[in-house]
């Protein structure tokens, strides 16, 4: 049994050629904070072979990333790094992004560099869409507004784009947690509107949009 395991291990090691570019790390977790607009990941490597290695391309998995090698050709023993900048604007939650690095090395042509990001949402609207079906009773419905960091966030006025929907804000007593109550004047015909919620995040005024509709 032991001999068989040793033989299989040796076979696997022999079958996989060592890559010329040795990466310190190929995957990383990036933590971000509320209001952060950009994240940066740096992947250091070293050419461990006795031949120069050329980086042919660096392909990010999404247009939200900018990356390029500092230079194209790395001499034997030379170290380098791939720096990736990820735009965070518009993104929330847990994201996975990757960059494929292509080299002229026949044994290991591609290396995948992966980044996992947790992007906190400063103000969570749960949900951000309320609807009534045509003919429904025009009852008041609500959604919850949660400021992830109450100390850095203040919730201001609310503005309905259409007087057909009346909205009011209610404090829950819990820090950073509010309820937005909305009532349509009637539900006889289809109508779409928005309710704008003005918030101040880390001293910066922003607007969050809630969608309301009679469908």
């Amino acid at each position: 049994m032991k001999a068989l395991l040793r033989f299989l291990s040796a076979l696997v090691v022999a079958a996989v050629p060592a890559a010329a570019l040795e990466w310190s790390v190929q995957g990383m977790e990036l933590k971000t904070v509320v209001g952060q607009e950009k994240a940066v990941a740096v992947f250091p490597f070293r050419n461990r072979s006795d031949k120069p290695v050329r980086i042919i391309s660096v392909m990010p998995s999404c247009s939200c990333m900018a990356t390029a090698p500092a230079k194209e050709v790395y001499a034997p023993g030379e170290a380098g790094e791939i720096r990736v900048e990820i735009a965070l604007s518009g993104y929330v939650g847990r994201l996975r992004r990757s960059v494929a690095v292509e080299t002229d090395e026949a044994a290991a042509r591609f290396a995948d560099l992966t980044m996992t990001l947790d992007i906190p949402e400063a103000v969570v609207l749960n949900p951000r869409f309320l609807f009534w079906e045509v003919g429904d009773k025009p009852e008041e419905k609500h959604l919850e507004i949660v400021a992830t960091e109450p100390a850095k966030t203040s919730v201001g006025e609310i503005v309905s784009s259409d007087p057909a929907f009346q909205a009011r804000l209610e404090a829950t007593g819990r820090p950073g947690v509010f309820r937005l109550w909305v009532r349509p004047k009637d539900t006889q015909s289809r109508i779409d509107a928005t309710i704008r919620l003005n918030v101040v995040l880390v001293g910066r005024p922003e607007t969050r949009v809630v969608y309301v509709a009679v469908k």
Partner: protein
Amino acid sequence: MTLFRILPARALSQAAWLLLAAWVPALLTAMWHPRRPTWGPENAPVAEVTWSQASGGAGQVLWIDARSATVFAGGHVPGALSLNEAEWEQGLPAVVKAWRPGVKIVVYCDDRACEASQSVARRLRRELGLDEVSVLKGGWRAWLEAQHSKP
């Protein structure tokens, strides 16, 4: 006849050790690997549907293209709306306006390898509170193949 009579105790013991040896690195990977799966309901994968399931079922379908606006402009499923995370706030109003109760939302991106459709589908479910959101298995590539294979 019990299992112990069929297999010698030594073989069972070795099998148990092998299972244990596999379980330890699997557990460590699940806990610390940077690409480990996350198990929270918010990050749970959205169900996939095939092109024939999506288009053949009862009820209307609202197609959502999760690729970039440039790629969308180059070709998309007829009637699809463009909604990607980079331009989320710009794309969302049209989706909300187009959706009706009973309409199923199916999100797609390039192919099986792309993750944008899952991200967009999860976010639609979370933000709009809609349940009937799924992802097209194989994405735009599968849709193209389905069109080519039509008689």
